């Protein structure tokens, strides 16, 4: 059997019994056609070389116990608080869907003729080139729910989403569409253990001068398998900032696909991941500079112990004519023992001659000299280690502009470190 037919077979098995949900019918059908042409990812795919997709491909999701959700994040924040349970919007547990400067709706209940009809799946579809992302197409076809957010001005407050799950084997497909008009501003926060197996897509379309901030915390559930995609499309002078904190999870693949379509825009993606034991965490980023004078930054750090595995695949593609591009990429892992490993594949592909692009990737242990210096000042071993781990992650947290949010994230990191001292 050829590779293509193996993939088609795997897809047919995976889709057996699944029906397209109602609404967004045209977009779902074309997504399914895309997916059928691609098939499911396999171990032979270069893009999945470091991450085994078989747990995602399997028909049945593995149960993953809902562990202690830990302290809620962003609780002190004045925000529109929304709740999804097992992939479905829970109106009763949520604030009203009203926010000045923003139109808020839900995918599952979007009426015919809704603005998102044309936007839904559009950036995902565009993001399938030059590299196929089958799980994103799957998501557009089968998403059960999600938010449809149209920001027309400066949003009065952030939208803060909490994901909860009731079932150990919850298999959830969520899809948000976020559109910011010219000059609009919006902050989007996400947290919580969404599913035992999660497929999550956010499409973000930023018009000229729009400013978007995204902070998410992927919850502390050990057995979780998750594949997420962010598709961002930036107009001139737009600002896109996304930070992800990942603690635990058996498998997490976070993809970010970012395209600069207008000049003078900025996109920063950052991630801090911490894993202990059965933890495989993959950050895969693809940034396309198709306009002049844009700035992209990728800052990804992972703390790994007891055999945890970290993966980073980051690409900066600078198209012909995208002069004065400023592209930066750093991926680093702190290995707390010899069993853990970090696999990195940084890539630059540049077709313009006047650009500044750099990338770096390192992995190493805690600096013994710094550790001794701290201890010689009276800081006990564990506390000194934690301080140095937080210091290692500091660059990623520095990408969060709101100091209160950054403080929340730091507290979450400290809690995790305290739980995983030995």
């Amino acid at each position, binding site marked *: 059997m050829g590779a293509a037919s193996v993939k088609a077979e795997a897809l047919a098995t995976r889709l057996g019994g699944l029906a397209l949900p109602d609404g967004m019918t045209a977009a779902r059908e074309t997504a399914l056609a895309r997916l059928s042409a691609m098939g499911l990812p396999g171990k032979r795919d270069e893009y999945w070389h470091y991450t085994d997709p078989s747990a995602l491909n399997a028909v049945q999701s593995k149960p993953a116990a809902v562990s202690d959700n830990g302290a809620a994040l962003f609780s002190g924040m004045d925000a529109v608080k929304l709740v999804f349970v097992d992939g479905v919007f829970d109106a009763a547990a949520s604030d009203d869907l009203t926010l000045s400067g923003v139109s808020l709706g839900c995918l599952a209940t979007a009426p015919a003729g809704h603005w998102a009809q044309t936007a839904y799946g559009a950036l995902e579809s565009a993001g399938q080139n030059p590299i196929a992302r089958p799980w994103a197409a799957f998501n557009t076809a089968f998403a059960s729910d999600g938010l449809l957010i149209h920001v027309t001005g400066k949003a009065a407050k952030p939208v803060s989403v909490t994901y909860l799950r009731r079932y150990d084997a919850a298999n959830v497909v969520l899809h948000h569409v976020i559109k910011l008009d010219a000059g609009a501003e919006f902050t989007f926060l996400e947290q919580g253990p969404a599913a035992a197996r999660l497929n999550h897509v956010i499409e973000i379309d930023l018009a000229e001068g729009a400013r978007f901030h995204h902070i998410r915390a992927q919850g502390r559930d050990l057995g979780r398998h998750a594949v997420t995609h962010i598709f961002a499309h930036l107009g001139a002078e737009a600002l896109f900032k996304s930070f992800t904190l990942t603690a635990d999870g058996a498998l997490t693949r976070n993809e970010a696909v970012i395209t600069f379509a207008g000049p003078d825009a900025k996109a920063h993606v950052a991630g801090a991941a911490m894993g202990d034991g059965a933890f495989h965490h993959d950050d895969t980023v693809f940034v396309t500079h198709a306009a002049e004078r844009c700035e992209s930054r990728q800052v990804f750090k992972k703390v790994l112990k007891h055999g945890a595995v970290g993966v980073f695949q980051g690409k900066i593609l600078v198209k012909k004519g995208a002069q004065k591009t400023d592209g930066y990429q750093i991926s680093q892992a702190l290995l707390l023992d010899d069993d853990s490993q970090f696999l990195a594949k940084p890539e630059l592909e540049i077709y313009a001659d006047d650009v500044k692009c750099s990338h770096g990737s390192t992995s190493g242990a805690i600096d013994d000299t710094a550790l001794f210096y701290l201890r*010689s000042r009276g800081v006990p071993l564990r506390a000194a280690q934690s301080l140095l781990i937080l210091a290692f992650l500091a660059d990623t947290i520095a990408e969060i502009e709101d100091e209160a949010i950054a403080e929340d994230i730091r507290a979450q990191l400290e809690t995790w470190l305290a739980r995983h001292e030995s």
Partner: protein
Amino acid sequence: MLEIKNLHVKLEEEDKQILKGVTLSIGAGEVHAIMGPNGSGKSTLSYVLSGRDGYSVTDGSATLDGADLLAMEPEVRAAQGLFLAFQYPVEIPGVGNMTFLRTALNAQRKTRGEPEISAGDFLKLVREKAKALKIDADMLKRPVNVGFSGGEKKRNEILQMAMLEPKMCILDETDSGLDVDAMKLVSEGVNALRSAGRSFLVITHYQRLLDHIKPDVVHIMAAGRIIKTGGPELALEVENNGYADLLAEVQ
């Protein structure tokens, strides 16, 4: 205060004896200086006393107010009042100098069973001590020693000492890399801390630091041993004649 007896130290990794029987007794309130050529084992002594990995003590002992120093973790030695101003202060990217100072101070207090210092009291204290050492707000905010000049790093060591108020201070070549003005600042910082209950072990290569920080006793160290002990005049002798005569004398 500090009693070192017949201390023998070798490297853990290789079979190399570095300290070959060091004996030293520093009483409360005393200032002792150790001088000696490069490679004689001065820094090794300071590291072994403060508990750095990589050395094994093959013989001898070291006690601080009677307690076995060598059996304690480095952080416990610090909480018991031992302080080492490093010859090469360490850069810690990502950890703010203020955070570092507050964490250290509170950790020591906690180990000793004392309450944490309040944020307000801490700020007041650090500002006052920093001012005396001409350490500006920017240096306090920056990550520990990152981007500091040689002199700034050394002043930062003295600031830590002033904040932590140890009873046994070891200064390892705190004068190296300092210009005359910085040397004055650092010496004033040290002298301000001199008291009846606090002792100093000042390791230096040159006599000039000892013009500012007047020692009670001067030891000459060579090849892992104290080869001569005397008063401040011994430092002058080294200054005038170098180490060659002294070394010849013992051989």
